[in-house]
Protein backbone atom coordinates (compact mmCIF):
# COMPACT_ATOMS: atom_id res chain seq x y z
CA UNK A 1 0.00 0.00 0.00
CA UNK A 2 1.51 3.30 -1.01
CA UNK A 3 -0.08 5.41 1.74
CA UNK A 4 2.26 4.85 4.61
CA UNK A 5 1.30 7.51 7.06
CA UNK A 6 -1.83 8.84 8.66
CA UNK A 7 -0.63 12.33 7.79
CA UNK A 8 -1.28 11.48 4.12
CA UNK A 9 -4.95 11.37 5.04
CA UNK A 10 -7.09 14.41 5.77
CA UNK A 11 -8.95 14.30 9.07
CA UNK A 12 -12.49 14.95 7.86
CA UNK A 13 -14.60 14.55 10.94
CA UNK A 14 -14.11 14.14 14.64
CA UNK A 15 -16.89 13.08 16.99
CA UNK A 16 -16.92 12.84 20.75
CA UNK A 17 -19.95 11.29 22.41
CA UNK A 18 -20.74 10.49 26.05
CA UNK A 19 -23.75 8.32 26.86
CA UNK A 20 -25.30 8.09 30.29
CA UNK A 21 -28.44 7.06 32.13
CA UNK A 22 -31.35 9.34 31.18
CA UNK A 23 -31.15 12.62 33.08
CA UNK A 24 -34.48 14.42 32.94
CA UNK A 25 -32.87 17.44 34.57
CA UNK A 26 -32.34 18.47 30.95
CA UNK A 27 -35.99 19.58 30.94
CA UNK A 28 -35.23 22.06 33.73
CA UNK A 29 -31.70 23.10 32.91
CA UNK A 30 -31.31 23.17 29.12
CA UNK A 31 -31.36 26.97 29.23
CA UNK A 32 -28.65 27.12 31.89
CA UNK A 33 -26.47 24.65 29.97
CA UNK A 34 -26.61 26.53 26.70
CA UNK A 35 -26.36 29.98 28.31
CA UNK A 36 -23.15 28.92 30.01
CA UNK A 37 -21.71 27.54 26.77
CA UNK A 38 -22.86 30.59 24.82
CA UNK A 39 -21.04 32.83 27.30
CA UNK A 40 -17.83 31.25 26.03
CA UNK A 41 -18.84 30.97 22.36
CA UNK A 42 -21.24 33.83 21.59
CA UNK A 43 -21.64 32.70 17.95
CA UNK A 44 -23.53 29.58 19.01
CA UNK A 45 -26.76 29.13 17.03
CA UNK A 46 -29.68 26.82 17.85
CA UNK A 47 -30.47 24.20 15.21
CA UNK A 48 -32.87 21.89 17.05
CA UNK A 49 -34.53 22.55 20.38
CA UNK A 50 -36.96 19.96 21.71
CA UNK A 51 -37.60 18.72 25.25
CA UNK A 52 -35.32 15.72 24.95
CA UNK A 53 -32.90 17.00 22.32
CA UNK A 54 -31.05 20.29 22.06
CA UNK A 55 -28.56 20.97 19.29
CA UNK A 56 -26.51 24.05 18.47
CA UNK A 57 -24.05 24.86 15.71
CA UNK A 58 -20.92 26.93 16.04
CA UNK A 59 -19.24 28.69 13.10
CA UNK A 60 -20.84 26.26 10.65
CA UNK A 61 -18.20 23.81 11.82
CA UNK A 62 -19.20 22.33 15.17
CA UNK A 63 -22.43 20.60 16.06
CA UNK A 64 -23.01 20.44 19.82
CA UNK A 65 -25.85 18.29 21.18
CA UNK A 66 -27.23 17.55 24.57
CA UNK A 67 -29.87 14.84 24.78
CA UNK A 68 -31.57 13.29 27.78
CA UNK A 69 -29.23 10.30 27.60
CA UNK A 70 -26.11 11.60 25.85
CA UNK A 71 -24.15 14.63 24.74
CA UNK A 72 -21.90 14.97 21.74
CA UNK A 73 -19.63 17.28 19.77
CA UNK A 74 -19.02 16.90 16.03
CA UNK A 75 -16.23 18.84 14.37
CA UNK A 76 -16.57 18.92 10.59
CA UNK A 77 -13.26 20.65 9.93
CA UNK A 78 -10.86 19.41 12.60
CA UNK A 79 -7.21 20.32 12.59
CA UNK A 80 -4.60 17.67 13.27
CA UNK A 81 -3.80 19.10 16.71
CA UNK A 82 -7.53 18.82 17.68
CA UNK A 83 -7.05 22.05 19.64
CA UNK A 84 -10.41 23.71 18.94
CA UNK A 85 -12.22 20.38 19.15
CA UNK A 86 -10.70 19.72 22.57
CA UNK A 87 -11.71 23.16 23.84
CA UNK A 88 -15.33 22.73 22.74
CA UNK A 89 -15.62 19.11 23.89
CA UNK A 90 -14.09 19.84 27.28
CA UNK A 91 -16.43 22.79 27.90
CA UNK A 92 -19.55 20.91 26.87
CA UNK A 93 -18.51 17.91 28.94
CA UNK A 94 -17.95 19.99 32.07
CA UNK A 95 -21.16 21.98 31.76
CA UNK A 96 -23.38 19.00 30.85
CA UNK A 97 -21.92 16.82 33.61
CA UNK A 98 -22.45 19.54 36.18
CA UNK A 99 -25.98 20.60 35.21
CA UNK A 100 -27.32 17.11 34.50
CA UNK A 101 -25.76 15.91 37.78
CA UNK A 102 -24.22 12.88 36.12
CA UNK A 103 -22.40 10.31 38.21
CA UNK A 104 -21.18 7.99 35.49
CA UNK A 105 -21.03 7.46 31.76
CA UNK A 106 -22.20 4.20 30.23
CA UNK A 107 -20.15 4.77 27.10
CA UNK A 108 -17.55 7.26 25.89
CA UNK A 109 -16.69 7.30 22.22
CA UNK A 110 -14.28 9.11 19.95
CA UNK A 111 -14.73 8.61 16.23
CA UNK A 112 -12.20 9.90 13.73
CA UNK A 113 -12.84 9.81 9.99
CA UNK A 114 -9.92 10.27 7.61
CA UNK A 115 -10.03 10.54 3.83
CA UNK A 116 -7.44 10.42 1.10
CA UNK A 117 -8.30 11.41 -2.44
CA UNK A 118 -7.27 9.35 -5.45
CA UNK A 119 -7.64 10.10 -9.17
CA UNK A 120 -10.45 7.55 -9.48
CA UNK A 121 -12.15 4.67 -7.69
CA UNK A 122 -9.99 2.07 -9.41
CA UNK A 123 -6.80 3.68 -8.13
CA UNK A 124 -8.20 3.83 -4.59
CA UNK A 125 -9.35 0.19 -4.84
CA UNK A 126 -5.93 -0.90 -6.07
CA UNK A 127 -4.26 0.75 -3.08
CA UNK A 128 -6.65 -0.87 -0.62
CA UNK A 129 -6.28 -4.32 -2.18
CA UNK A 130 -2.50 -4.04 -2.34
CA UNK A 131 -2.45 -3.86 1.47
CA UNK A 132 -3.44 -7.58 1.41
CA UNK A 133 -5.56 -7.09 4.51
CA UNK A 134 -8.42 -8.26 2.30
CA UNK A 135 -7.20 -11.63 1.06
CA UNK A 136 -9.55 -12.33 -1.83
CA UNK A 137 -9.52 -15.49 -3.96
CA UNK A 138 -8.40 -15.19 -7.56
CA UNK A 139 -11.11 -14.61 -10.15
CA UNK A 140 -13.30 -15.05 -11.99
CA UNK A 141 -15.84 -14.64 -9.16
CA UNK A 142 -19.21 -16.22 -9.95
CA UNK A 143 -18.43 -15.88 -13.61
CA UNK A 144 -17.33 -12.25 -13.35
CA UNK A 145 -13.71 -11.59 -14.16
CA UNK A 146 -13.47 -8.02 -12.93
CA UNK A 147 -11.79 -6.31 -9.97
CA UNK A 148 -14.02 -5.67 -6.91
CA UNK A 149 -16.08 -2.50 -6.93
CA UNK A 150 -15.64 -0.13 -3.95
CA UNK A 151 -13.99 -2.71 -1.68
CA UNK A 152 -13.87 -2.22 2.07
CA UNK A 153 -13.77 -3.95 5.40
CA UNK A 154 -14.94 -3.44 8.96
CA UNK A 155 -13.26 -5.06 11.94
CA UNK A 156 -14.04 -4.69 15.62
CA UNK A 157 -11.99 -5.57 18.68
CA UNK A 158 -13.36 -5.50 22.20
CA UNK A 159 -12.07 -6.16 25.67
CA UNK A 160 -14.25 -6.05 28.79
CA UNK A 161 -13.50 -2.35 29.16
CA UNK A 162 -12.86 -0.80 25.75
CA UNK A 163 -13.45 -1.46 22.10
CA UNK A 164 -12.55 -0.16 18.68
CA UNK A 165 -14.06 -0.45 15.23
CA UNK A 166 -11.89 0.07 12.18
CA UNK A 167 -13.47 0.67 8.80
CA UNK A 168 -11.48 1.07 5.63
CA UNK A 169 -13.36 1.51 2.39
CA UNK A 170 -13.19 3.01 -1.03
CA UNK A 171 -15.74 5.73 -1.41
CA UNK A 172 -16.96 7.67 -4.42
CA UNK A 173 -18.51 11.09 -3.88
CA UNK A 174 -20.53 13.03 -6.40
CA UNK A 175 -21.31 16.68 -5.86
CA UNK A 176 -23.92 18.38 -8.07
CA UNK A 177 -24.94 22.00 -7.73
CA UNK A 178 -27.35 23.77 -10.01
CA UNK A 179 -27.49 27.46 -9.11
CA UNK A 180 -30.73 29.46 -9.47
CA UNK A 181 -31.13 30.68 -13.06
CA UNK A 182 -31.01 34.37 -12.12
CA UNK A 183 -27.48 34.00 -10.78
CA UNK A 184 -24.71 34.14 -13.32
CA UNK A 185 -23.10 30.93 -12.13
CA UNK A 186 -22.30 27.71 -13.93
CA UNK A 187 -23.71 24.42 -12.68
CA UNK A 188 -21.12 22.36 -10.85
CA UNK A 189 -20.46 18.66 -11.09
CA UNK A 190 -17.56 17.08 -9.26
CA UNK A 191 -16.64 13.48 -8.62
CA UNK A 192 -14.19 12.55 -5.92
CA UNK A 193 -12.86 9.09 -5.18
CA UNK A 194 -10.75 8.04 -2.29
CA UNK A 195 -10.04 5.86 0.71
CA UNK A 196 -12.00 6.42 3.90
CA UNK A 197 -10.37 5.32 7.14
CA UNK A 198 -12.84 5.44 10.00
CA UNK A 199 -11.89 4.59 13.58
CA UNK A 200 -14.31 4.46 16.46
CA UNK A 201 -12.73 3.99 19.90
CA UNK A 202 -15.09 3.57 22.83
CA UNK A 203 -15.46 2.35 26.38
CA UNK A 204 -17.71 -0.60 27.22
CA UNK A 205 -17.51 -0.61 30.99
CA UNK A 206 -19.00 2.35 32.84
CA UNK A 207 -16.81 5.36 33.64
CA UNK A 208 -17.27 7.33 36.86
CA UNK A 209 -17.39 11.08 36.37
CA UNK A 210 -14.47 11.33 38.82
CA UNK A 211 -12.34 9.17 36.51
CA UNK A 212 -12.93 11.20 33.41
CA UNK A 213 -10.90 14.10 32.09
CA UNK A 214 -12.23 14.90 28.64
CA UNK A 215 -9.00 16.49 27.42
CA UNK A 216 -6.76 13.68 28.67
CA UNK A 217 -9.03 10.94 27.34
CA UNK A 218 -9.33 12.47 23.86
CA UNK A 219 -5.60 13.26 23.74
CA UNK A 220 -4.59 9.73 24.64
CA UNK A 221 -7.13 8.21 22.25
CA UNK A 222 -5.78 10.43 19.47
CA UNK A 223 -2.30 9.21 20.40
CA UNK A 224 -3.46 5.56 20.28
CA UNK A 225 -5.01 6.06 16.84
CA UNK A 226 -1.86 7.68 15.49
CA UNK A 227 0.34 5.02 17.04
CA UNK A 228 -1.63 1.95 15.99
CA UNK A 229 -3.04 2.88 12.58
CA UNK A 230 0.10 2.20 10.61
CA UNK A 231 -0.50 -1.54 9.94
CA UNK A 232 -3.85 -0.69 8.36
CA UNK A 233 -2.23 1.90 6.13
CA UNK A 234 0.97 0.10 5.18
CA UNK A 235 -0.58 -3.32 4.80
CA UNK A 236 0.43 -6.78 5.89
CA UNK A 237 4.08 -7.70 6.00
CA UNK A 238 5.05 -9.93 3.07
Amino acid at each position, binding site marked *: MRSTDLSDFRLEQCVFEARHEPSYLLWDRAGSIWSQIRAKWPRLKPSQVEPSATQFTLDNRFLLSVFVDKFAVIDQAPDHSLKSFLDVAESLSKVATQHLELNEFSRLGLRLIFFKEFPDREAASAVLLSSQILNLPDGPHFGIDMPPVLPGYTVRWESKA*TGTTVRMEVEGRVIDFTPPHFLDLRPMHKEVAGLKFDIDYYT*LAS*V*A*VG*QFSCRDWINQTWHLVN*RDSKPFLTGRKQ
Partner: protein
Amino acid sequence: MNNVLAFQQPTSLIPDTQVLPHQSHSKYPNPDTGVVPQNLVNPKPKLRIVGKDDIIDNSAQRISIEELYPASEAIKPELNVALRLLSVSSTCIQEAIELLHIGDSVASDDAIQRLQAILPELFCCRIISDSFGAMINATYHALKNQEGLPLTKHQIQAIGRAVSRIRSEPFMRFEAAVEEIMALEEVGFIVEPPEFEYLADWLDE
Protein backbone atom coordinates in the same frame (compact mmCIF):
# COMPACT_ATOMS: atom_id res chain seq x y z
CA MET B 1 -71.23 2.78 18.53
CA ASN B 2 -69.55 2.51 15.19
CA ASN B 3 -67.31 5.45 16.14
CA VAL B 4 -66.19 3.72 19.34
CA LEU B 5 -65.38 0.52 17.52
CA ALA B 6 -63.36 2.39 14.95
CA PHE B 7 -60.82 3.40 17.64
CA GLN B 8 -60.45 -0.05 19.18
CA GLN B 9 -57.23 -1.76 18.33
CA PRO B 10 -57.65 -5.14 16.65
CA THR B 11 -56.39 -8.01 18.83
CA SER B 12 -53.80 -9.07 16.27
CA LEU B 13 -52.09 -5.64 16.52
CA ILE B 14 -51.77 -5.51 20.33
CA PRO B 15 -48.08 -5.02 21.13
CA ASP B 16 -46.26 -7.93 22.76
CA THR B 17 -46.07 -6.23 26.14
CA GLN B 18 -49.87 -6.18 26.51
CA VAL B 19 -50.19 -9.92 26.74
CA LEU B 20 -53.07 -9.75 29.23
CA PRO B 21 -55.75 -7.31 28.04
CA HIS B 22 -57.49 -5.46 30.89
CA GLN B 23 -60.95 -6.68 29.96
CA SER B 24 -59.84 -10.30 29.96
CA HIS B 25 -60.53 -12.53 32.97
CA SER B 26 -58.79 -15.48 31.39
CA LYS B 27 -56.07 -17.39 33.19
CA TYR B 28 -52.71 -18.58 31.93
CA PRO B 29 -52.79 -21.50 29.48
CA ASN B 30 -53.16 -24.96 30.88
CA PRO B 31 -49.63 -26.43 30.70
CA ASP B 32 -51.04 -29.91 29.97
CA THR B 33 -53.22 -28.96 27.05
CA GLY B 34 -51.22 -25.95 25.84
CA VAL B 35 -54.47 -24.23 24.97
CA VAL B 36 -54.28 -20.45 25.05
CA PRO B 37 -57.52 -18.90 26.36
CA GLN B 38 -59.35 -16.41 24.22
CA ASN B 39 -57.93 -12.83 24.26
CA LEU B 40 -54.50 -14.04 25.29
CA VAL B 41 -51.78 -13.48 22.74
CA ASN B 42 -49.45 -16.39 22.19
CA PRO B 43 -45.97 -15.44 23.47
CA LYS B 44 -43.57 -15.41 20.55
CA PRO B 45 -39.84 -16.01 20.67
CA LYS B 46 -37.74 -13.04 19.68
CA LEU B 47 -34.81 -13.50 17.40
CA ARG B 48 -32.10 -10.85 17.53
CA ILE B 49 -29.17 -10.96 15.18
CA VAL B 50 -26.02 -9.58 16.77
CA GLY B 51 -24.10 -7.95 13.97
CA LYS B 52 -20.93 -5.96 13.70
CA ASP B 53 -22.77 -2.73 14.42
CA ASP B 54 -24.22 -3.96 17.72
CA ILE B 55 -22.42 -2.78 20.81
CA ILE B 56 -22.21 -5.24 23.68
CA ASP B 57 -23.36 -3.47 26.83
CA ASN B 58 -20.88 -4.03 29.62
CA SER B 59 -21.71 -0.86 31.52
CA ALA B 60 -22.55 -2.76 34.72
CA GLN B 61 -18.81 -3.16 35.19
CA ARG B 62 -16.68 -0.15 36.19
CA ILE B 63 -13.59 0.56 34.11
CA SER B 64 -10.24 0.85 35.88
CA ILE B 65 -8.09 3.97 35.56
CA GLU B 66 -5.43 1.99 33.64
CA GLU B 67 -8.02 0.75 31.17
CA LEU B 68 -9.43 4.25 30.70
CA TYR B 69 -6.01 5.80 30.08
CA PRO B 70 -3.96 2.98 28.50
CA ALA B 71 -1.56 5.39 26.77
CA SER B 72 -0.04 6.95 29.87
CA GLU B 73 2.55 8.78 27.75
CA ALA B 74 -0.24 10.81 26.14
CA ILE B 75 -1.99 12.09 29.26
CA LYS B 76 -0.89 15.19 31.13
CA PRO B 77 2.44 14.57 32.93
CA GLU B 78 1.02 15.44 36.36
CA LEU B 79 -1.66 12.76 36.02
CA ASN B 80 0.86 10.22 34.83
CA VAL B 81 3.20 10.95 37.77
CA ALA B 82 0.31 11.01 40.25
CA LEU B 83 -1.03 7.61 39.15
CA ARG B 84 2.44 6.11 39.45
CA LEU B 85 3.07 7.64 42.90
CA LEU B 86 -0.39 6.64 44.13
CA SER B 87 0.37 3.05 43.12
CA VAL B 88 3.55 3.18 45.21
CA SER B 89 1.52 4.73 48.06
CA SER B 90 -1.01 1.90 47.90
CA THR B 91 1.81 -0.63 48.12
CA CYS B 92 3.21 1.16 51.22
CA ILE B 93 -0.21 1.11 52.88
CA GLN B 94 -0.76 -2.56 52.04
CA GLU B 95 2.64 -3.38 53.52
CA ALA B 96 1.86 -1.34 56.64
CA ILE B 97 -1.41 -3.23 57.18
CA GLU B 98 0.22 -6.63 56.66
CA LEU B 99 3.15 -5.82 58.97
CA LEU B 100 0.83 -4.54 61.66
CA HIS B 101 -1.19 -7.73 61.31
CA ILE B 102 1.86 -9.87 62.11
CA GLY B 103 2.73 -7.57 65.02
CA ASP B 104 5.71 -5.73 63.50
CA SER B 105 4.58 -2.20 64.37
CA VAL B 106 8.04 -0.68 63.78
CA ALA B 107 8.23 -1.94 60.18
CA SER B 108 4.59 -0.93 59.68
CA ASP B 109 5.40 2.61 60.82
CA ASP B 110 8.40 2.58 58.48
CA ALA B 111 6.07 1.83 55.55
CA ILE B 112 3.82 4.74 56.58
CA GLN B 113 6.85 7.04 56.71
CA ARG B 114 7.71 6.05 53.14
CA LEU B 115 4.16 7.02 52.20
CA GLN B 116 4.58 10.33 54.02
CA ALA B 117 7.70 11.07 51.95
CA ILE B 118 5.75 10.63 48.71
CA LEU B 119 2.95 13.05 49.62
CA PRO B 120 4.79 16.36 48.94
CA GLU B 121 5.57 15.20 45.40
CA LEU B 122 1.95 14.19 44.96
CA PHE B 123 0.89 17.64 46.16
CA CYS B 124 2.90 19.09 43.25
CA CYS B 125 0.40 17.34 40.95
CA ARG B 126 -2.56 19.24 42.41
CA ILE B 127 -3.21 20.86 39.02
CA ILE B 128 -5.12 17.63 38.25
CA SER B 129 -8.13 18.85 40.23
CA ASP B 130 -9.08 20.77 43.36
CA SER B 131 -10.33 17.51 44.89
CA PHE B 132 -6.98 15.86 44.29
CA GLY B 133 -5.11 18.74 45.96
CA ALA B 134 -7.49 18.81 48.92
CA MET B 135 -7.24 15.08 49.56
CA ILE B 136 -3.47 14.91 49.28
CA ASN B 137 -3.17 17.97 51.52
CA ALA B 138 -5.52 16.40 54.10
CA THR B 139 -3.61 13.10 54.04
CA TYR B 140 -0.29 14.93 54.43
CA HIS B 141 -1.48 16.90 57.46
CA ALA B 142 -3.25 13.87 58.92
CA LEU B 143 0.09 12.07 59.08
CA LYS B 144 2.13 15.13 60.10
CA ASN B 145 -0.23 16.00 62.96
CA GLN B 146 0.30 12.53 64.44
CA GLU B 147 3.69 13.93 65.58
CA GLY B 148 5.41 10.57 65.39
CA LEU B 149 2.67 8.49 67.00
CA PRO B 150 2.12 5.18 65.18
CA LEU B 151 -1.16 4.75 63.34
CA THR B 152 -3.84 2.34 64.40
CA LYS B 153 -5.11 -0.31 62.02
CA HIS B 154 -8.31 1.70 61.43
CA GLN B 155 -6.32 4.82 60.66
CA ILE B 156 -4.10 2.99 58.16
CA GLN B 157 -7.18 1.50 56.52
CA ALA B 158 -8.81 4.95 56.32
CA ILE B 159 -5.69 6.38 54.66
CA GLY B 160 -5.72 3.37 52.32
CA ARG B 161 -9.34 4.03 51.34
CA ALA B 162 -8.59 7.71 50.66
CA VAL B 163 -5.54 6.91 48.53
CA SER B 164 -7.41 4.21 46.65
CA ARG B 165 -10.34 6.55 45.95
CA ILE B 166 -8.19 9.42 44.70
CA ARG B 167 -6.26 7.02 42.48
CA SER B 168 -9.41 5.61 40.90
CA GLU B 169 -11.20 8.98 40.68
CA PRO B 170 -8.64 11.79 40.48
CA PHE B 171 -11.26 14.17 38.98
CA MET B 172 -13.96 13.53 41.58
CA ARG B 173 -16.36 16.29 42.60
CA PHE B 174 -15.15 18.49 45.44
CA GLU B 175 -18.09 17.43 47.63
CA ALA B 176 -16.97 13.80 47.27
CA ALA B 177 -13.45 14.79 48.31
CA VAL B 178 -14.84 16.60 51.36
CA GLU B 179 -16.68 13.40 52.36
CA GLU B 180 -13.44 11.42 52.06
CA ILE B 181 -11.61 14.00 54.20
CA MET B 182 -14.37 13.82 56.82
CA ALA B 183 -13.90 10.03 56.87
CA LEU B 184 -10.26 10.66 57.83
CA GLU B 185 -11.38 12.97 60.65
CA GLU B 186 -13.76 10.28 61.92
CA VAL B 187 -10.83 7.97 62.73
CA GLY B 188 -9.09 10.68 64.75
CA PHE B 189 -6.92 12.45 62.22
CA ILE B 190 -6.46 16.24 62.26
CA VAL B 191 -6.41 17.09 58.57
CA GLU B 192 -5.54 20.79 58.74
CA PRO B 193 -2.22 22.43 59.52
CA PRO B 194 -1.96 23.48 63.22
CA GLU B 195 -1.52 27.12 62.14
CA PHE B 196 -5.14 27.09 60.96
CA GLU B 197 -6.31 27.09 64.57
CA TYR B 198 -4.46 30.34 65.33
CA LEU B 199 -5.54 31.82 62.02
CA ALA B 200 -9.17 31.08 62.81
CA ASP B 201 -8.81 32.69 66.26
CA TRP B 202 -7.13 35.71 64.68
CA LEU B 203 -9.92 36.08 62.14
CA ASP B 204 -12.56 35.81 64.88
CA GLU B 205 -11.10 38.76 66.75
